[in-house]
């Protein structure tokens, strides 16, 4: 990256806290990109120096975001869990702000029109997913972490299996059950419309 990432991230975060929506538009891809790359390297087990650099970026973002002292990374599992939580916070915040700007504070949906490459996709109400996920975490924290990593941080199930150090079959089972559970929960409690 040509620009100095921590500085840029710092500025963007400040902007965001001050209510600048555009700052978030830029922050999101930045953090997301780094997180994805980091997960990728984790899986490939290559270029540790790069990993370190990426980690620093997300680390920085996290600190600025929650205004806390540096957390002690216990493990990569811990690191990814925190990073995914960060993504979740950013996305939910994003959806709330954008949703609020729409007529009557309608649904917080993420939409998709032109991105043919992504395949067809129903709109998803991120805030509903967030609420349902909070409920799920009470029953099964691991499952909730898997959803966080998959849906909010965009990791593949294989990457998740690496990151959480659990068998791929277990990740798959948890993911399947979580999707069914969340879908039911969201259908039972339609918040909007």
């Amino acid at each position, binding site marked *: 990256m040509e620009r100095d990432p921590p500085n840029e991230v710092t500025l963007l975060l400040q902007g965001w806290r001050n209510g600048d*929506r*555009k700052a978030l*538009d*830029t922050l*999101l*891809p930045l953090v*997301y*990109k780094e997180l*994805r790359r980091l997960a990728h390297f984790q899986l490939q087990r290559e270029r540790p120096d790069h990993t370190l650099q990426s980690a620093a970026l997300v680390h920085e973002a996290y600190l600025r975001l929650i205004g806390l002292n540096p957390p002690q990374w216990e493990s990569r599992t811990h690191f990814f869990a925190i990073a995914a939580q960060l*993504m979740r916070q950013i*996305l939910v915040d*994003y*959806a709330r702000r*954008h949703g609020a*700007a*729409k*007529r009557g504070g309608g649904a917080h949906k*993420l*939409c*998709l*029109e*032109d*991105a*043919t*490459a*992504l*395949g*067809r*996709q*129903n709109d*998803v109400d*991120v805030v509903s*997913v967030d609420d349902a996920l909070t409920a799920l975490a009470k*029953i*099964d924290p691991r499952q909730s972490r898997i*959803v966080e990593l*998959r*849906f*909010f*941080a*965009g990791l593949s199930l294989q990457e998740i299996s690496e990151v959480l150090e659990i068998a791929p079959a277990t990740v798959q*089972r*948890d993911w*399947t*059950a979580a*999707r*069914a*559970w*969340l*879908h*039911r929960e969201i*259908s039972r409690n339609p918040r909007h419309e």
Partner: protein
Amino acid sequence: MNSERWDRTKQILEEALRLASGQRSAYLDSACDADRELRAEVESLIASHEAAGSQFLAVAAPDLLLACSGDSDMAPLNHVIGHYRLVEELGRGGMGQVWLAEQMEPVRRDVALKLVKGGMFDSSALERFQSERQSLAIMDHPSIAKVFDAGATPDGQPYFVMEYVPGASITEYCDQKKLKIPERLELFIKVCDGVQHAHQKAIIHRDLKPANILVVEVDGKPVPRIIDFGLAKGVTPYVLGEAQCTLAGSFLGTPGYMSPEQADSGAQDVDTRTDVYALGAILYVLLSGSLPFETEKWRKQPLHENLRQLREEDPPPPSTKTGTQGESTKTTAEARGTEPKQLVSLLRGDLDWITMKALERDRVQRYATPSELAADCRRYLRHEPVQARQASVFYRMQKYVRRHRIGVAVVGMLAAVLVAFSVAQSVQLRRTTRERNRADRIAQFMTGIFKVSDPNERVGNSVTAREILDKAAQEIETGLAEDPELQARMMHEMGKAYLNLGLYARAQSLFEKSIKVGIAAVGEENRETVLTEQDLGWTLFQQGRLVEAENLERRVLDTQRRVFGPGDQYTLGTMGNLASTLCEENKCAEAEQLNREVLQQQKSLLGPEAHYTLVTMDNLSVVLDHEGKLAEAEKLERETLDIQLRVSGLEKLGTISSMINLGDIERDLGHDEEAEKLYRQALEVEGRVLGPDQPETAETAYSLACVLVRRGQIEAGLSLLRQAVDHGLQARADLGIEKEPYFESLHGDPRFAALVAHAKERASARNAN
């Protein structure tokens, strides 16, 4: 719910989902025992699982968000813009938002109103917008959605008003209606016509893709309507995925349909051929069901890597995307009203050529205009030769068909011969001046042929084997003139390479030169000279020059019996070749006799399951078939095929050959169904193992065409025959089509007459190459 219980629930859920829905109830009976609550929970989750489908949470939230990043509501609060009342948002994306709107005056009608994303407008973009709206208004073509109006809201938000097209995208429509390939082409041609019209008005679309081509039915017939013409120009920051954000501000295009020149960063010179490329990508999807490049994969790799691929790599031809197995292949074929295998053979050939010409990375190689592309599609539909293939058959052949198959083989062969030669020589002429000279000559020659032609034509190290071969053949006469023995040997080897490529005229010429040089250098009865003559005989046979072949083979056989001995494998080989020639000349009795002699010798010398023994069994069956001794032929060929399958497996030339010959015999026995089965299987294997443009593949297609015509499947038969002629059918067979008894029912059919004439032209062209 406690966690232990939830774990149990998850396990039962997973197990139940693995079962077919009919078996679940029984499973739940046993798994949940009497625990009604547990069972109700699992059943409820199964229902949710099914309701969620495959899409729920399938795309990560950041990806979704980035796909429409930064858009906020652009419509004014009262939902009124000028004469238009906004009714319903139809969609939004990187370009802005589209609304279904009602025009209130002067006429009441539904329109589509597009609010162009304002944030990206600078004053120059606004100026462009103003001039563009003029040109958009002058387009008038049934394939283009009409642009009625354009303007800006009081706070400067630009918008377009277009015809509202309540239709599905062209790909969705074609799949829903299960349009067959010709129907898809008809529709595609209309799209090309529309784009051509726009180009004549100096408007380039720049973002053609299925989502921008909607289909409506007018009088029950599908009509495409292209939307969003010219809107992409200088207006849109496209967001393709996380990586592409770095490029916000410069328009890229949609992944999969974006042309290589759009991928060339900094290159602003997009022209009408950019649209031709996108049309090629759309055609690719309409035909094969997938995009030229895997955009799924693109999302996982960095942007610059995707762009590099687009600039530097050729996508595989569409026919290779469909495959013949698998569920998605079946769905793709079904949506085209056909079977996977038929779809592959339908696409292979002309449609591959047409699509690939439109997708050329170099614009100069593409169709210059959409109407040229449309014209080639029309030619295909009329069974006429397509330009794509005529113009670039040689160019393409190097690029796709030969590159992998013979590349290593030819270069390796040439090198091996030279090395073997120099080693042999150095043993004989240890450290003499002559040896050093020879080594130098070899080195020089090898270096020479690797310096291929015009450096401007080369990209990287992608020199093809065919180029090396041509270059070598060109230089052999002068390059090794000082060493005629080596020269004759190399000419022979190169001739064999051309023979393997089915380029018989070139092979023949090299063999003849080699023989001439060889006779002068080492004598008429030198082993090498005689072997070259043997190969020349086979080449003449392949060209259908049977009398010449027979005379030469008889002479060679004489010499070989004398010089090599009657049991030498080459002598037996020539006997076999002679038998094939005689059989083709209808001198079957002698052919049968020869083959039986050879077979007897080989069985005792080589063994009953040796490769050459099996070849002869195969040959003998063919002769018996020609003689009408069908029962004996069938028995022998089945025996041969069984051994082949057991000893060498399905994907061996010998096995395929037996399979085809057995197909011939079954066909002659009137067992058309069995014959069709054998031919189809052989054709599938050949297409896969040899490639589509091989003489062998073409010949099998020809045989299959015979059976299809006899079974009354005229259309399929003609199309296959045409494919065979265009894709490597040998001159011998080309010339035989007219007299082929299986095609008698086609006499008087103008399509057949045209095909016969075309085949004759091809035959003379092939013999002249």
